[in-house]
């Protein structure tokens, strides 16, 4: 069975995520996509490079998906995070949630993305329009690039 929380190097297929959480019991399905935006902290962004501590990130994504389902269940939750070089408008993360009711589905979707941002060992290096690139910190503010 495909893991409910997983990493991918391929473009995220939203339709696949939605199908994975569809059940006759669910009256609400929510899809969240985090996408690469053209500006961060006032700087023009051309793309983002995502990397991860892959073994641990896969474990944490899977753990979050199961915890989410337990926390607001009965629910179905699928989380996919993309790695590699992404251009503008490409999805870096996709979260699909299926629940009997919309209230719980919204709470669950929100809890899942916040938990992902809090604890999954994934990093991003932003590429800017001026040709420079910098690691971003969790608040989205760039960390000074280390020159060797």
């Amino acid at each position: 069975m495909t893991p409910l929380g997983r990493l991918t190097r391929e473009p995220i297929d939203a339709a696949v995520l939605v199908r994975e959480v569809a059940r006759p019991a669910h009256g609400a399905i929510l899809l969240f996509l985090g996408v690469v935006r053209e500006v961060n902290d006032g700087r023009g962004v051309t793309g983002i490079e995502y990397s991860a501590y892959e073994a641990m990130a896969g474990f944490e994504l899977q753990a979050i998906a199961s915890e989410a389902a337990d926390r607001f269940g009965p629910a179905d939750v699928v989380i996919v995070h993309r790695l590699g070089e992404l251009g503008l408008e490409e999805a870096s993360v996709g979260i699909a949630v299926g629940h009997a009711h919309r209230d719980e589905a919204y709470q669950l979707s929100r809890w899942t993305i916040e938990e992902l941002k809090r604890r999954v060992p994934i990093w991003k290096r932003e590429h800017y329009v001026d040709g420079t690139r910098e690691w971003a910190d969790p608040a989205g503010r760039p960390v000074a690039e280390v020159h060797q």
Partner: protein
Amino acid sequence: MSVTVLLFASYADALGASSLSVDLPAEATVADVLAEIARLPGSELLPASPLVAVNQRYASTSTRVSPGDEVALIPPVAGG
């Protein structure tokens, strides 16, 4: 004994490596691993107490390490 230390993102850039082998006395802890890392050039760019994982699970400075363990220094995470 020796453990493998993994470095990622800005920490890997700071130390110029993504993986190191660190020699430690028996019954060492994560704090001892961090003390060894702090002796390396470039380590001044790391925080004094970075987040650490042992064998892919978050750990604390008092967590014991065993021969062959995989210790990872985790920069501030930025997924999403």
